[in-house]
C-alpha cells in the first residue's frame, strides 16, 4: 500500500473521529474548533491526493477548503456567537451515549454500503468512501439531535465537509467549476444563516429552535 493512501486513510479516520467528537460535543465553541479541524483534515487529505496524483485543480480545491472551512466560516461563527452570547448548548434531544451508539450503527451501515463500491474504485483512496458516507450520515444525525440553531448549522457544514471528502477521495475531486459553485453556495448559505441568527434572536430572544414549532397541523 503506497504511503499516500495510508496517509489519506489516516486522515479519513481522523475525519470520522472528529465527526464522532462533534456528535458528542456539548460546547458550541469546541464544536466550532472541531469543525475547523475537520476542515483542516479535509484540506490535508485533498493536498495529499493532489500531490500523489498531480491533479492540479485539487490544489485549488485544497486552498479553497482552507480558506473557507478552516478560516472564514469558523471566524464568522465565532463572531456570531460572541455577538449573540450563546456559548452553551447543554441539552440534546437524546442523551449522548445513545446518540453515540446510533452513530456507530450508522458508521457500520455506511461501511457495508460502501464496500461493494470501493471494490471497483481504482483510486488510491478506495476505502475512504465509506468513511465519507459515514461522516455525512453522522452530521445528519447531529442536526437531528441538536436543539439550538447554531449547532444545527455546524452540523450542516460538517455534512458539506463529508461530501467534499467523498468527492476528493472517491473521484479525485469534482470538476473545478462545480467545486467553485458548491463553495459559493456554502459561503452564501453561511451568511444567510448568519442573518437568520439575528432575526431569530430578535424575534424569539433565544436561538432555541423549540420556539419555532408554531407552524403545524392540529
Amino acid at each position, binding site marked *: 500500500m503506497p504511503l499516500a493512501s495510508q496517509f489519506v486513510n489516516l486522515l479519513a479516520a481522523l475525519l470520522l473521529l472528529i465527526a464522532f467528537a462533534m456528535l458528542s460535543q456539548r460546547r458550541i465553541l469546541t464544536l466550532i474548533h472541531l469543525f475547523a479541524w475537520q476542515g483542516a483534515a479535509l484540506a490535508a487529505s485533498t493536498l495529499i491526493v493532489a500531490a500523489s496524483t498531480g491533479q492540479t485543480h485539487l490544489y485549488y480545491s485544497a486552498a479553497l477548503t482552507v480558506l473557507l472551512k478552516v478560516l472564514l466560516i469558523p471566524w464568522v461563527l465565532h463572531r456570531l456567537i460572541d455577538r449573540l452570547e450563546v456559548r452553551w448548548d447543554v441539552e440534546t434531544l437524546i442523551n449522548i451515549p445513545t446518540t453515540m451508539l446510533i452513530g456507530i450503527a450508522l458508521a457500520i451501515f455506511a461501511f457495508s454500503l460502501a464496500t461493494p463500491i470501493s471494490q471497483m474504485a481504482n483510486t488510491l483512496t478506495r476505502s475512504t468512501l465509506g468513511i465519507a458516507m459515514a461522516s455525512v450520515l453522522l452530521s*445528519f444525525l447531529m442536526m437531528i439531535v441538536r436543539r439550538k440553531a447554531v449547532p444545527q448549522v455546524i452540523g450542516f457544514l460538517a455534512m458539506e465537509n463529508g461530501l467534499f471528502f467523498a468527492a476528493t477521495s472517491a473521484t479525485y475531486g469534482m470538476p473545478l467549476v462545480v467545486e467553485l459553485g458548491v463553495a459559493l453556495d456554502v459561503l452564501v448559505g453561511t451568511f444567510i444563516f448568519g442573518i437568520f441568527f439575528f432575526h431569530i434572536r430578535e424575534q424569539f430572544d433565544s436561538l432555541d*429552535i*423549540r420556539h*419555532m414549532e*408554531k407552524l*403545524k397541523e392540529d
Partner: protein
Amino acid sequence: MNADALTGSLAAAACWLATGVLALVPARRAWFARTLAFPLGALAGLALAGFGLDAIWLPAARMTLPLGLPGLPFHLRLDPLSGFFLMLLGAVAAGISVYAAGYFRGEQPGRLALIGLQYHVFLASMALVVLADDAYLFMVAWETMALASYFLVTTDHRRPAIRSAGFLYLLVAHLGALAILLCFGVLHGGRGDYAFDALRAASLSPGWATAAFLLAFFGFGAKAGMIPLHAWLPEAHPAAPSPVSALLSGVMLKTAIYGMVRVIYDLIGGVRWEWGLVVLVVGAGTTLFGVLYALMQHDLKRLLAYHSVENIGIILLGLGMSMVFIGFGHPVAGALGLVAALYHTLNHAVFKGLLFLGAGSILRSAGRRNLNEMGGLIHRMPRTAFYFLVGALAISALPPLNGFVSEWLTFQTALQSPVLENGVVRSLLPLFAATLALAGALTAMCFVKVYGIAFLGRPRQPAGAEARDAGNFERFGMAWLAAGCFVLGLFPTAFLLMLNRVGVSLTGHGLSEAALESNWLWLIPTAPGQASYSPVIFLAVIAGTVLLCWVLVRRFYHGRVRYADPWDCGYPEQTARMQDTADAFGQPIRHVFGPVYRMHRVLPSAEDPAPRYVLKIEDRHWYALYLPAARLAAYLSAKVSLLQRGRISIYLLYSFLTLIALLVFVR
C-alpha cells in the same frame, strides 16, 4: 342523410353554446339575455328534437372533431338511442325554455346574464353527453353538465342551505364521475384508444364485466338519484330556480339513464341476469323509498324531487326486468322491458318538467313553497291549475294519460315472467310488479294531497289570496308539456315503434310481430289475445258518457243551482285553518310506515302557554351512510396530520429515515 342529422344536432348544440355566450354581453341591461336568448334556445331545442326523431329511423352516423386529446379526437355518434334522447332533450327543453323566457324576465341584469350563460351551456353539454362516442368527450361533457347545473343550483347562493345543497350535489356528481371513469378504464381491455368502438370491441372476463357493470350502475346511479346515493337530489333540485329544477329533474336525470343503457347494453354487452336482479332490487327500494318520503314533504319542490327519485326507481324496474329477460335468453321480453323503461323515461321527463314549471308559477305568484300555507289557488290561477292537474294525473299513472302507458308496459313485462326457467326469479318478478303497483297508488295519494292542499279548498294564508295566474310565456311552456302528456298517453303506438327501433339497434331484437302491427288505435305489446289497451276508446267512452249524462240530466230534469255556504257541521265559525294540512294528510302513512322514517316529534303539553306541534322527518341514509363516511374521512385526516407536528428535528428525522430505508431497500 343521417350525417345531416348529426351535423344538425351538433349545430343546435353549438347554437345553444353561442346563445349562452351572447347572453353574457352586458349591453343595455343584458338586453339579449332578457329578450332573445331563451326563445332562441327553445327554437334550437325544437330543431334538436327534429333531428333526433329523424335519427331514430336511420343507421348510426359518425363524425370526429379535430379537438380533444392527441390520438383521441372528439368522436361523435348519432344512433337511434342517442336520437331518442336528443328528441327527449330537445322537446322538453323547448317547453322549459319558453317558460324560462317569461320566468327570468324580472332578474337583475348581472344575474340574468350568468343564468343565460349557465342555462344554455347546461343544455349544450347534455346534448354532447348524448352524442359523445369516446370516453374523454363523454367525461368532459358529463362534468361540464354537472358544473353548469351546479352554478345554476347555487344561483341564489346567499342562502346557506342552498350553498350546502350545491356542494353536496357537486360532490356526489364528481364521485359518480370518478366511478364512471374507472368503469371506462375497466372496459378498456388495454388495447386501442378510448373511443367507444374500442370499448365495445374489448372482450372482458365475466368478473371484470361485472365490475364494470357495478361501477357504471353506481356511477350513473349517483347522478340518477337512486338510493342510497340520492341524498343530494331532494336538496339540490328545490334549490334551483324552477325552470332549472324542471331541467334537472326532467332531463338531466335522463342523461344518467342514457349512460346506464349505453354502457350496460352497448359497451359492456352480454347482459347477465344477475345484474338485472341487482338493478331490480335497487330500483324497487328507490321506488318505495322515494314515494314514501315524498308523502312526508310539505315543501312542494322538495316533494317533486322525491318523486323524481321514485320515478327513477320505476325506470330501473323496467331496465332490470329487461336485463333479466335478456340474461335468460328471452330477447323479445327483454326488448319489451327496455321499451317500457325508455318510455317511462320520456314520460317522466314531460310530466315532471310540467309539474316543476307549475310549482315555479305557484312560487312566483303565491310567493311560497310550503304547501301548508297555500290553498284555493285554483280560483286565482285557473290555467296553471289545469296544467298542474294534467301533470298530477299523469304522474299518478292514471289512464288515459302518459304515465299510465309506461307503467302498464312495465306490468306487461313483469307478466312475461312465466317464460323464465329459473323458478325463483320467475316468482320474484311479479313481486317487483307489486311494489310498482303500491308505489303507483301511493303516488296518487301524494298528488291528491298536493293538488287538494295547494289548489283546492280555501287559502290558508292571506298571501295566497292575491296570487295571479302565470304570464303568457309561462302558460305556453306548460301547455306544450301538458299537450305532450296527452299525445304520449293517447297515441303510444308511434312511440312504441320508435323505441322498438332503439331496442333493435341496441340488442338486435325487437318486439313481437303482433306488437309491431298494432295500429294507432290499439296498443298491443305482445300478442292480441294477451294484452291490449286503447287509450283513445277509453277516453272517448268516458268523455262520451259524461257528455251524454250531462245532456240527459239537463234534458229530462233541470240545471237549477243555488249557492250557499258550505255545511258548517253545526260549528258556526269555520276558519280556513281547520282544513287538512299537508302534514295531516301524510299522517296515516306515517302511522303505517313508521319504521321507514327517522321522526323527531315534539308534542305540546297541556299547560303550554303557546302550544306548538313540531314534527321533523329526516332521511335515514344520512345517519346510515353519509355522516359515517364523513366521520371516517375526518378521522383519517386527523391521524395523517400527526405527520406535521412542527418540530424540525422530527422532519429531519423523516428524511433521514427515508434515506436509510431506501438505502436498505437498494442493498
